[in-house]
C-alpha cells in the first residue's frame, strides 16, 4: 500500500474542517467542522502507525483523541443550548464578548 493516499486524504479533510469553521455562522455546523478536523488528525495518527512501524502508539492516541472529541462535543453543545435559551439564536457572529447583557 502507498501511505501517501491516507496522508493526503487527512490533509484535505483538515483543510475542509478549517474552511468550515471559518465559513459557517451556525454554531452547530462549526462543531461539525471541528469534528472533521479531529478525524483528520485521527487518520494521520493511524497512518503513522503503518509508516513508522512501531506498534500501536498512533492507534492509542487516536482513541484518546476520540475521547477528547466526545468531551468537547458534550460541553460545546451545552454552551450552544444555553446560549440559544438566552438569546434564541445560534449564530456565532452575534455573540458579544464585551458584556453580560449585550447582544
Amino acid at each position, binding site marked *: 500500500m502507498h501511505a501517501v493516499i491516507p496522508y493526503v486524504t487527512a490533509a484535505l479533510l483538515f483543510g475542509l474542517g478549517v474552511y468550515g469553521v471559518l465559513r459557517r455562522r451556525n454554531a452547530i455546523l462549526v462543531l461539525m467542522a471541528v*469534528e472533521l478536523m479531529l478525524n483528520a488528525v485521527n487518520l494521520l495518527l493511524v497512518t503513522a502507525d503503518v509508516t513508522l512501524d512501531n506498534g500501536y502508539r498512533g492507534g492509542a492516541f487516536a482513541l484518546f483523541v476520540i475521547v477528547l472529541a466526545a468531551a468537547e462535543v*458534550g460541553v460545546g453543545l451545552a454552551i450552544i443550548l444555553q446560549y440559544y435559551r438566552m438569546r434564541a439564536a445560534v449564530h456565532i457572529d452575534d455573540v458579544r464578548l464585551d458584556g453580560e447583557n449585550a447582544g
Partner: protein
Amino acid sequence: MTVADALLLALGAVAVGSGTLVVTSTQIVRAGLYLVISLGAMAGLYLVLGAELVAWVQVLVYVGAVVVLLLFAVMLTRAPIGPSADLDRPAWPALVVGGGVGLGLAALFVDAFRWVRYGMPAPGTTERMGAELFGNWVLPFEVLSILLLSALVGAIILSRPDIGAPKPTPGPQPQQPTPGAQQPTPGPQRPNVSAQQPDPSPQRVEEPEREKQKDGS
C-alpha cells in the same frame, strides 16, 4: 496499485466528498447526515490500515453518539428544516485559509512520502492495543477519565436554567454561601425562577408558532 490502494482511494474519495458536502450544504440536517457518511468512510480507512479497534470505536462513539448529539442539538435549537440562506459567511477568507492549509499540508505529505510502498500492516488485535494502552499509556488514560468526568459536570452546570437570569436579585445571593447552597432547598431557587420569567425570548418565540400550528390544524 493493489487492492488496499484501491480501497484507500475509494474510501478517501467518499470521505473527502461527503466532508465537502458537510461544509457546503445549506441544510443543517443534511450536513449532519453527510457527516455520518464521512465518519463511516473514515472508519473503513482505519480498517484497511489495520486499526480495527479504532475503527469500531469510531463507529460507536462518533457515528453512534456524537452525531446523534449534534442532531439533538439541531432539534433543540429549532433549526429550519428546509434550506436556509443565512448559514454562511462570505466565502473568500475561509476559502483562502482552508484551501491553503489543506493543499499546503497535502503538498507537504506528497513531498515527504512520494509514492513509496509500505508493507501491509498486520490486522490489529484488541489484545495488543490493550497492552499498549494499559502498559505505556496508563497515566493519560486515567487523566482522560478525570477529564470526561469534569466535562460531564461542566455540561450539567452549564445547562442550569438559572444561568440565563439577566439580573439576579441581590437578596438571595448572600444566603447561598450558607449550607443551604449545597442542598437544593427551594428558597434560593425561587427568585431565580421568577427572575428568569421575563427574560427568555425563546418562550416568546414559541407562542406564535403554536398559534400558527393551531391555525393550520
